[in-house]
């Protein structure tokens, strides 16, 4: 018998012990689309934050080339004022990512706390808190966001605040559902029997177990927020010049669709790539966190 197959007594069944995190990570790696998306997304972030800084043109810089189509010198062409569109798109990507990631994190923090407190305590606390969430959900997001952003907005962090102030209600519903199902589990009962406080149960037992669903939801939020931000910018209620975002770039380019189509296609393509890769990453995370997931994807 070869040396390597000899196991110590506690390794009798030749099954290696793996932590929850390792399991999740291995399952995530099996989702090919998610892994590819994650790579593309990381490249995109590097491109936006490092590439924009290394690129020979600045986003606001006027070059002598007006309205030139894509070439080696200007991979995405230039606009009528001679600004390099590649630099502009990278700057827009930066702002759009900042908005959407801030929205996702803010809304997730507030929504998770709100939903888990409501779900954990139940009774009238639950009813009251969820009615407030429901109220927020009855309003068409884009309309309220446009109304608020028209007078409070303009810069990217204010837009992020406005969008997050509406999205947390979605998160709170998801978080509450998860907590409701976890609350009845035996390990919570055991923790209670051992005398754990409510705070400890929520923070140490409920939140870590709900992390999977919350993380999946966070990725969906990033994608939703980036689309909402672009729509707002398109309607003229989002980020305003001199700031820029991918949505603003597209809306500025729509009148030049026939004469300078590159101005319209590249920022739109970046929006789609960001939203698409994030959705795939979310899909991969969902499969990876699902404890019932046993089947390996073909």
């Amino acid at each position, binding site marked *: 018998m070869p040396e390597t197959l000899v196991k110590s007594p506690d390794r009798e069944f030749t099954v290696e012990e793996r932590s929850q995190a390792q399991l999740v990570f291995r399952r995530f790696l099996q989702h090919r689309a998610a892994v590819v998306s994650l790579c593309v997304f990381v490249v995109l972030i590097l491109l936006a934050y490092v590439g924009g800084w290394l690129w020979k043109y600045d986003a606001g810089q006027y070059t002598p080339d007006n309205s030139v189509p894509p070439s080696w010198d200007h991979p995405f062409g230039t606009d009528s004022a001679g600004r390099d569109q590649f630099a502009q798109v990278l700057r827009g990507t930066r702002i759009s990512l900042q908005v959407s990631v801030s929205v996702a994190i803010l809304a997730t923090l507030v929504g998770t706390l709100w939903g888990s407190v409501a779900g954990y305590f139940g009774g009238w606390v639950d009813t009251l808190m969820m009615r407030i969430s429901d109220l927020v959900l009855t*309003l*068409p*997001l884009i*309309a309220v966001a446009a109304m608020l952003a*028209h*007078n409070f907005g303009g810069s990217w962090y204010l837009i992020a605040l406005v969008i997050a102030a509406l999205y947390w209600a979605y998160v709170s519903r998801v978080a509450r559902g998860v907590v409701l199902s976890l609350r009845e589990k035996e390990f919570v009962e055991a923790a209670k029997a051992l005398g754990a406080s409510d705070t400890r149960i929520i923070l140490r037992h409920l939140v870590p177990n709900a992390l999977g669903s919350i993380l999946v939801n966070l990725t969906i939020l990033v994608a939703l927020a980036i689309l909402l931000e672009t*729509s707002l910018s398109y309607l003229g209620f989002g980020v305003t010049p001199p700031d820029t975002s991918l949505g603003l770039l*597209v809306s500025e380019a729509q009148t030049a669709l026939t004469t300078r189509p590159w101005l319209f296609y590249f920022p739109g393509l970046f929006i789609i790539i960001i939203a698409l890769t994030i959705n795939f990453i979310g899909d991969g995370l969902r499969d990876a966190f699902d404890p019932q997931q046993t089947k390996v994807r073909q």
Partner: protein
Amino acid sequence: MLAFAVRRILYSIPVLIVASFIIFALGSASADPLAPLREKNPPAPQNVIDAETIRLHLDQPLLQRYFSWLGGIFTGDFGPSVVSTANIGADLGDRFLVTIRLIALAMVIALILAVVIGVLTAVKQYSKFDYTATFLGFLFLAMPAFWFAILLKQAGIEFNGLVGTQAIYTIGQASVPPPQGTGAYIADIIGHMILPTISLALISYAAWSRFTRASMLEVMNSDYVRLARAKGLTRRTVMVKHGLRTALIPLTTVTALDIASIIGGAVVTENVFQWKGMGDYLVNSIRMNDVYATASWLLIAATVVIAFNLIADLLYGVLDPRIRYA
């Protein structure tokens, strides 16, 4: 069931009233209807501003303004607009009729697409068709509504150029002036609806078809479907009579709950195709700081959303025999 329905309807009323107050307070707090007058160059004379203050009830406290607005709605008066000749109620009524045909048709098309594609992808799971449809679904989920709409509009314009005549309408919700005769009038309206409806339907169907697929897969793997097959029923019968009927129940809820985002999509779509509908009205009202118009718009939207939630709850009880309301 009837008791549940009555209780559920009664419960919607306070929700709507609280929503209306939040809408009004948010609108009043976030916009100053007099700002455009003050920022005008040269600035409007003080007596004009004073007159506008009184006409727009801005001299009254917020609560009083709110109650007179809410009370007025029952008599069809949606409050004074910053455009002194405009009647908010009448304008919103006209535009509601324009937008509702876009939303209704787009929803029907999106639902049919979602069910057909969702069922086919579930039945042929992991086939080439499944992968293609899944990828397309993800693509539409990731596409900004207005970007796709602008592309469609451009395609329409180029198609017209190719044919050499106005084969597809790309601007507006109807011709101005409208053509003579009922038949021509209806044809004109339908012609204008083609591109916006396709655009809104394709943007909306993706999430629903993913949902149908997941729920169909779940049902097809359940014990009672296996039992039905074991009893000797054909795959087709089991699929349609046992599988689909059950799988579609949760879809009704999801569709109804998505109405708010469809209204949002319609706002953007209308803007691209320059429809004079609710979306255009909202954008203009917000730009002009027309607080009463914006609040009235939001109130109508909230009413529609609450009504759809109500319908979803009631339908769920009718469709799912397991749910009984005591």
